[in-house]
């Protein structure tokens, strides 16, 4: 098990390094940082001045090496646009996205587990089909459309929820719904599948035969066992939401990592992008490790490889 973890860690480092190098190249390819910094209405000589000022006229390898050397010592530099250090920026925005993703996941689970249970229990009935349709419908809509629809209904027509900003908890409800809705079909299917298997299992039938009320059987045995793969997948979906919240944060004007990433990428604010990538890569690696461990614990065949 230790060697397994160590191998994964090595993988993590390799991934982080590769990703940062690719990101660097892509950002440089996608436009001219000096012009973006100088602004649209700057003259050519101003752009050149800025290019020299920020060391952008040096060969790419040197620029990357410079960043890498400092990053290895823990200094991720400062944003090229904000008067903040990359660490401070990320620390400031990450909690919002984390809250958003957590809430989104909670909402997804709140929908998918009961739906999945109902679908499994009354499987192949119209309830089963309805649940599936409902879940898949959310997945089939472009997410910004869904988000804007929520704004329209809950924000404008009904006026129940605040539309934008990061003031209070209420600001996160609609965005979390928009974000979480997307994970519902997968989680629902998984719950249903797990429940179905467990319901058919011997020990459940035994428990039921012994006279325990169905509700107890469901919750004690079936749910508890069906939930394990769901939790594993939920952890992964959480990771997706964390890194995929750009559109939602844009629509609801939430100041999170997603929007910071989009901003920084568009402006080629290289240090910030690299910082975010590292956080995301780290997150994925940790998540992968955890699910691997969980997987191995569940299925000894994998562990022996």
């Amino acid at each position: 098990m230790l060697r397994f973890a160590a191998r994964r860690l090595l993988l993590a480092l390799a991934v982080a390094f590769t990703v940062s190098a690719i990101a660097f190249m892509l950002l440089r390819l996608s436009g001219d940082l000096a012009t973006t910094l100088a602004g649209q209405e700057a003259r050519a000589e101003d752009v050149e001045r800025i290019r020299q000022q920020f060391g952008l006229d040096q060969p790419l390898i040197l620029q990357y090496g410079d960043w890498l050397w400092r990053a290895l010592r823990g200094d991720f530099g400062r944003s090229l646009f904000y008067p903040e250090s990359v660490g401070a920026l990320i620390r400031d925005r990450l909690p919002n996205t984390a809250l958003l993703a957590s809430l989104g996941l909670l909402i997804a689970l709140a929908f998918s587990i009961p739906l999945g249970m109902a679908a499994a229990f009354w499987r192949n009935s119209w309830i089963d089909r309805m649940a599936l349709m409902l879940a898949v419908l959310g997945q089939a809509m472009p997410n910004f459309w869904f988000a804007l629809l929520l704004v329209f209904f809950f924000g404008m027509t009904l006026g129940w929820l605040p539309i934008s900003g990061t003031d209070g908890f209420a600001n996160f409800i609609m965005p979390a719904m928009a974000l979480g809705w997307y994970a519902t079909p997968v989680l629902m299917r998984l719950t249903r599948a797990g429940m179905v298997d467990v319901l058919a299992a011997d020990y459940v039938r035994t428990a039921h035969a012994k006279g325990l009320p169905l509700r107890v059987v469901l919750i004690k045995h079936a749910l508890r066992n069906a939930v394990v793969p769901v939790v594993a997948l939920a952890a992964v979906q959480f990771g997706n939401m964390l890194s995929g919240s750009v559109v939602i944060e844009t629509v609801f004007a939430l100041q999170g990592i997603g929007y910071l990433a989009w901003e920084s990428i568009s402006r080629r604010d290289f240090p910030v992008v690299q910082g975010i990538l590292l956080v995301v890569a780290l997150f994925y690696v940790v998540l992968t490790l955890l699910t691997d461990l969980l997987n191995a614990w569940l299925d000894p065949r994998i562990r022996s490889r």
Partner: protein
Amino acid sequence: MPGSTPVSAPGEELAAQAALPVPAARRRRPRWQRNLGLISSALVLAAIVIAALAAPWLAPHDPYVQSLNDRLLPPFFVDAERAVPSHPLGTDNLGRDYLSRLLYGARISLLIGFFAMVVSGLIGTVMGVLAGYFGGRTDTVVSFLVTTRLSLPIIMVALAVVSVFGGSLEVVVLVLGFLLWDRFAVVMRSATHQVRGREYILAAQAIGCSVPRILWQEVLPNVLSSLVVIASYEMAQAILLEAALSFLGLGVQPPLPSWGLMVSEAKEVMLFEPWMIMLPGAAICVLVLAINLLGDGIRDLTVPEGRA
């Protein structure tokens, strides 16, 4: 990207396994009900494909012709008074006929979805099968590639590629193809892995068949059902991702009538002319739903009883 796709390797293994549930009760289900989803989605998909192919004959106008005096006309079911008979579904903000754009847009969405799926499918399947079959170092390398791909934000890649090559249809297909292969790789790896220890594989190895032959003749046919399921899912994903990229300005370029682009353009007047976003949005929904249900249906048909 936007709350969508990728699930990392092991998590997906779980999902892949769990997504193949077939309770014993299935046997009791009447045949027509089991196939209802499959048939209806196949019909819908066929209808969309036919509409796309027959667009030049079905469309009342050229989807590119502008008419600045006829901008933003409503469809007949929204405002019968202002609607114009020659534009049954109204016009967009440059006066182009919406019905025609929807019909031609079917082509673009289908093209993007299909070819992105093919490209990512090729890349991902090759990687996944090799990783599942050989294991060991190959598996580690593929794992590394998958995690790297997952850690790279889609927007960044899309932005860079579009900046360098411009935003044409081909570029978008390639970008999506190169970004969506990870799930293919993961599922194919898992499926290959399951099949690896089967008797027929061992037998083929024993009689000295070459690796390519084994892969092609023994492995692939047996993982085909998983492949079909994931292919249908990824096609739907590609279509949705194109819409999201268009929202951010990184998708196909106007004046192409891609549904995703139409949704993105209609966003500006969404609060006041909701039909403009509803129509292409619903079209995308229907297409994605049909593809997903089709994939589900095929899986239900092809998977044997009980857990694999």
